[in-house]
């Protein structure tokens, strides 16, 4: 916990560095943004075509009523989890190292949930009637079906998107004030409005802390519930290999897992692009990687125990799906997932990997690929070999689904790029706090106390040891 290299960063430098990242973008920024825009437009065209012709153009069929749209939905929802959840949990457990990385992680959360929310909508057969899923008052007192996990989804996503946006925004207010003070033109107006007159008075800080911690307390269970609900889309059904009791925690673990991987990806990119080396240090990467590793292990446990218990259950339907998963037409997907998401994370057990930024970057992409494949193999193989052997069929997603999938990546990246240029992607005030704490840590009384206790312990234990 020692040698933090940012010990002596001047506060003014922090402001300068971070505000610099908001300045006029380089050419490459516009190129990437342009590519994203093109992807989004392709997706819009695909959706328009699908809207016009009917969902059949997506090449789903009976028994594959769901496919890539749903697996993408789960993927993006999963990605959205790590940001808020990690930020909130680490805030509550007072882990200091979250401070330089939580802002962009939260932004990632918000944008991936905005991406995720698209999918259940375009996946509907009658998109134009999607509002029927909402419990709005109407003359005929027709309610949606509250028993349906899809309705829980609708509620969960809305709540989660709102709260995540609020959490991101609240945490950003002091920084927005800094931006306001340094900005001109339309930015000045924007930041003035958003910072709501933040002056950094003690009263403001007290209120701010309370609000922020309360939001975090609310968000942790919310995030867990959101992905548990996403899991229930599958677990509540009676489909073999969907009806799995461990799906809710499994999905939560998977969400954190892929989200952490995404954080690592963005971590390396931002660090590289904005030259944030001083804030996003190797130590923080090390901790993020360790956390990812731990989550990967939980995910692995749940995944493997699912396989084991299916095997152990002797349940004909479930076993059939399992066997088909490993030997059937979708086997490359499943094995790919196991390779990318089960085996690959063990690389993070090695310090050398954890401390190598680009290794972590590529590894994180592999993990995300693995988790994307995982979502696909959750949706498709069980449908392919369902209860009714007569309907067994394999279907691969068609061009429309694939282009909309690509578009979702373009859409997410586009939003994130725009965010990076308008809002500080590293929290200035919290990095300052961290620097402050580090600087003054040695003089802190309670720390001294703890050290005293430790000394005493060691003494006794040495005695015990030699005595025994």
């Amino acid at each position, binding site marked *: 916990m020692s040698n933090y290299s940012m010990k002596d960063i001047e506060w003014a430098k922090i402001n300068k560095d971070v505000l610099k990242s908001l300045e006029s973008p380089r050419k490459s920024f516009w190129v990437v943004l342009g590519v994203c825009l093109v992807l989004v437009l392709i997706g819009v065209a695909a959706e328009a075509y699908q809207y016009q012709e009917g*969902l059949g153009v997506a090449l789903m069929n*009976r028994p594959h009523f769901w496919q890539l749209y749903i697996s993408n939905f789960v993927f993006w929802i999963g990605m959205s989890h790590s940001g808020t959840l990690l930020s909130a949990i680490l805030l509550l457990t007072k882990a200091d190292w979250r401070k330089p990385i939580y802002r962009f992680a939260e932004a990632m959360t918000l944008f991936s949930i905005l991406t995720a929310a698209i999918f259940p909508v375009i996946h509907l*057969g009658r998109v134009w009637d999607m509002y029927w899923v909402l419990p709005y008052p109407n003359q005929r007192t027709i309610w*949606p*079906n509250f028993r*349906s996990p899809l309705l829980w989804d609708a509620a969960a996503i809305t709540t989660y998107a709102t709260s995540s946006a609020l959490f991101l925004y609240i945490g950003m207010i002091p920084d927005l004030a800094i931006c306001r003070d340094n900005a001109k033109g339309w930015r000045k107006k924007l930041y003035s409005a958003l910072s709501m007159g933040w002056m950094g008075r003690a009263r403001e800080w007290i209120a701010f802390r309370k609000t922020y911690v309360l939001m975090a307390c609310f968000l942790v269970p919310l995030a867990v519930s959101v992905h548990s609900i996403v899991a229930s889309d599958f677990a509540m059904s009676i489909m073999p290999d969907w009806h799995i009791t461990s799906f809710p925690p499994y999905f939560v673990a998977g969400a954190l897992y892929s989200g952490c991987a995404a954080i690592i990806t963005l971590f390396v990119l931002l660090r590289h692009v904005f030259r944030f080396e001083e804030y996003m240090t190797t130590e923080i990467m090390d901790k993020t990687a360790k956390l990812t590793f731990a989550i990967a292990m939980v995910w692995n446990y749940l995944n493997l125990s699912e396989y084991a218990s299916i095997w152990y259950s002797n349940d004909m339907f479930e076993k059939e799906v399992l066997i088909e998963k490993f030997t059937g037409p979708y086997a490359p997907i499943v094995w790919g997932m196991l390779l990318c998401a089960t085996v690959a994370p063990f690389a993070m057990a090695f310090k050398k990997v954890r401390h190598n930024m680009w290794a972590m970057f590529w590894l994180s992409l592999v993990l995300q690929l693995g988790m994307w494949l995982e979502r696909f193999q959750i949706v498709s193989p069980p449908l392919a070999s369902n209860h*009714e052997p007569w309907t067994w069929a394999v*279907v691969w997603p068609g061009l429309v689904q694939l282009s909309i999938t690509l578009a979702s990546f373009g859409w997410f990246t586009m939003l994130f790029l725009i965010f990076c240029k308008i809002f500080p992607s590293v929290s200035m005030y919290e990095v300052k706090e961290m620097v402050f704490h580090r600087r003054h840590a040695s003089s802190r009384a309670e720390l001294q106390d703890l050290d005293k206790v430790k000394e005493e312990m060691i003494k006794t234990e040495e005695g015990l040891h030699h005595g025994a």
Partner: protein
Amino acid sequence: MALKRMIENWSRLRKRDYYEDSPFMWGMSIDLNKCIGCGACVTACYAENNLPVVGKEHYATGHAMHWMRIERYWEEPEGETDIDIKDGEYPERGAHYIPMMCQQCNHAPCEPVCPVAATYHTTDHLNAQVYNRCVGSRYCGNNCPYKVRYFNFFDYWKDLPSPLEMQLNPDLSVRSKGVMEKCTFCVQRIRAAKDQANDEGHPHHVEDGAVKTACQQSCPTQAIVFGNLRDPESEVAKQWEEHEVELGRHEQDKSEDLRGYRVLEELNVEPCVMYLDRVRDTEA
């Protein structure tokens, strides 16, 4: 308001079977000893229920809309040794045919998962699909263990060449794209028979045989029997009784000699269709 209603009707809502008192529970029995797999029922269903012909391309992508289908399997009967079947090179016991359509489950897994309650249980114990309400989430289709729900992936009726549209049955709608549909037990015929019974002054009793489903009507071997399971005098109820297939169980406690069974009843979905075992003369 909903809460108030819930409180007022609490005792009713707590019942295992909401429609305990309903005089109707439509059910079917299909004798596989008689079924020859000819497909008359399939076409009759197309004719009666305005099923779209999707054409070769759509059929190839799995978008066919046959509410009723005849599944064909090749397996040999178990436990039989034979003098000349080498590795089962020829299916010498013929094919296994089974007409499969919505089983009108009383614990239908499709019902609770619909986000807009477009599929629900009617007081007749039919698993109804409200086309107008359906938004096309297709969850019901996934959760159906029989995979007998059919989704309108396209507007199949859009390009129907004239005058084929003159055949369409005005008693029920044609379905637009994005809507799930499935076998209704010819609910329009049930409706007509109930209306008539009502006119005749006995709304709680529809005479057995007054409703025939299109598939039952056309079946050349009369393998399909349809009727009201709540009417002990109905043919179908008698058959269920005779074969000791009981509702409300997921495992029948009965003699192996009796032929009745319900497909996948071990999933506790309470199908209202009973099948009777296929029969083969093992001595031939």
